[in-house]
């Protein structure tokens, strides 16, 4: 492989456009936002960038720290469930027959073809009081009630629909549903590269399946697990649509608070400060991932 340093002109030709793009549409707006976070509102449309830390001071008040805490907890739970559910799926795809693999991967990616908002509304029609989930459960309930009558037992009471929507359960379910592909794909990428003879050796030498999974497969797939965790956790932490639409009265996450600062509260400086605290947390996560990966590489070497 050629080093980019030896082909500077080619590299420049290819990289200029994306770098300009990134600079104009990502770095500059972000810098403006960062500057706003040290400002204050003057009048309705003007922001005076005075270098104040008041926005950050307000952002670390207990109220907002508690909301950050809750968001982290929800995102962590989401990531954990995604990992538990996603790992077997990734293993299944890895060991599927080659002609099935592309189809299974397509199945994982298919939801991306539909907009998040549409999928969330679809989930709402499934979960609501008179939605498909409750209708199916009610039907099963009535069926078993009738079966009891046939068997000469007391029938069951009337079916009470479960509260599946507008609570924290719905938020976590929605987040898991949305973020599962982010977990499965890097896991699959890591597992697919795995040397299968190691697994065979482990099984041959007397380790059970569970032990092989935990002591052989999991450590070897660690880079995939870490990237999966990071790219699931970060968007889940910043989720705003899901808690807005599926959540109950206590399901607000930090992104909802940030959104309100930019819109209804018209307090861009404070919204910027909250966003940047979230961004710093994200950078720390990514730095942690990078250092873990470096460490793993060193151990390998």
């Amino acid at each position, binding site marked *: 492989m050629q080093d980019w340093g030896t082909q500077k002109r080619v590299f420049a030709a290819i990289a200029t456009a994306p770098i300009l793009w990134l600079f104009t549409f990502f770095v500059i707006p972000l810098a403006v936002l960062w500057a706003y976070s040290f400002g204050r509102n003057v*009048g*309705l*449309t003007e922001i005076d960038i005075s270098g104040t830390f008041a926005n950050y001071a307000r952002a670390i008040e207990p*109220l907002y720290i*508690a*909301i950050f805490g*809750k968001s982290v907890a929800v995102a962590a739970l989401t990531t954990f469930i995604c990992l538990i559910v996603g790992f077997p799926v990734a293993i299944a795809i890895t060991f599927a027959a080659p002609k099935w693999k592309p189809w299974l991967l397509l199945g994982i990616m298919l939801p991306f073809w539909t*907009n998040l*908002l*549409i999928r969330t*509304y679809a989930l709402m029609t499934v979960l*609501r*009081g*008179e939605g498909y989930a409750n209708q199916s459960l009610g039907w099963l309930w009535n069926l078993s009630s009738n079966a009891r009558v046939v068997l000469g037992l007391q029938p069951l009471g009337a079916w009470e629909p479960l*509260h599946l*929507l*507008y609570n924290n359960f719905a938020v976590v379910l929605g987040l898991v549903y949305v973020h599962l592909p982010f977990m499965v794909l890097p896991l699959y990428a890591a597992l697919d590269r795995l040397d299968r003879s190691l697994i065979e050796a482990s099984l041959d030498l007397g380790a059970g399946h569970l032990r092989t999974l935990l002591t052989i497969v999991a450590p070897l797939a660690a880079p995939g697990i870490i990237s999966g965790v990071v790219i699931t956790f970060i968007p889940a932490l910043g989720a705003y*649509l899901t808690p*807005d*639409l599926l*959540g*109950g*009265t*206590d*399901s*607000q996450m930090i992104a909802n*608070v940030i959104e*309100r*600062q*930019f*819109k*209804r*509260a*018209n*307090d861009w400086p404070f919204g910027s400060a909250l966003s940047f605290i979230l961004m710093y947390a994200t950078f720390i996560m990514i730095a942690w991932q990078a250092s873990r990966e470096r460490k793993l590489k060193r151990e390998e070497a």
Partner: protein
Amino acid sequence: MDKMSLLRESIMGRRSLLQGLGAAAIGISITGGLAACSKGEEKKSASGEEPKLNFYNWDTYIGETTLDDFKQAAGIEVNMSLFATNDELFAKLRAGNPGFDVIVPSNDFVERMVKADMLMPLDHAKIPNFKNAAPAFTDVPYDPKRAYSMPYTWLVLGIGYRKSKMKGPIDSWKVLFDSDEYKGRIALLSEAGDLFRLSAKYKGHSVNGLNKDIIAEIEAMLKKQKANVKAFHEDNGQDLLLSGEVDVVLEYNGDIAQIMKEDPDIDFVVPKEGSQFNSDNLAIPKGAPHPENAHAFINYLLDAEAGKKISETILYPTPNAAAKALMPDDYKNNPVIFPPAAILAKCEYASYNAELQPLYEEAFTRIRAD
């Protein structure tokens, strides 16, 4: 009104999120095209401007054929793009007008935009159809003498409810804000300002008479009430009510009137304590490229026949008395669309208050975090 139910089924309402998405996409494509449009052919209309107009409107908020009719009548082609919330409108114009001629801000935003010097004063001589406006809308507190805006529609907040599930007559905000009678069957609008102002109304204050103490008192009441509330909705309360998810919602009369056509078990009341009016208005932002056309268009929308066609489609209460007179009885005499005058007398417009708005928002954040 099959069209209406079709719209409803595709989860539409004036301010629903889904539309917001479409609106954003359309907004981008159309504003992107604006620059190109204005450079186009230099054919002049009667006004001396090129025959174009850029209209920034809410979704499903214009008559089916209104824009075509206007083109026929005046030869001006209207380019409509859509916004989903006042905040979006404000944010788009905040850094300068990207080329819009006519916008439709709500009352508090008319106030806010006038304060921020974002609107152009209207030339009433060019809007003779202003005479069609009902007297209640010709001089309003948020825009004295209608210097900057013309009335387009109005709405009032109240309680939408499912009749068969009610344990007694519904006539007070108490059922929403201060009672466990309908525990778990309540949905409130997630607009901090509206929630606090209406709670103040329940407690006997004016919607413009809040202060820190009242806000604290209301915060405590709503924190307590939160246990009884199922959801804070994003102005889709009518969907929650129609799907049976909740039995009482805080919503706008126009939204509930739309679903009452589908489900006769639903009704709406403006509580006896009074409520808050909202009104959407036609205005011309500063820097509009076609101010003459904009005046002509606003004048056309205030025409009786054109106004009737708009009301037939959108079913919101119209402030246009001449248009209302042309409407069928089931609209004119509908007590949901036009609540009784005695109740309306207790309703007020909320004026924009830059000091209190952040307090409402922070208190609401605390309520939700509690």
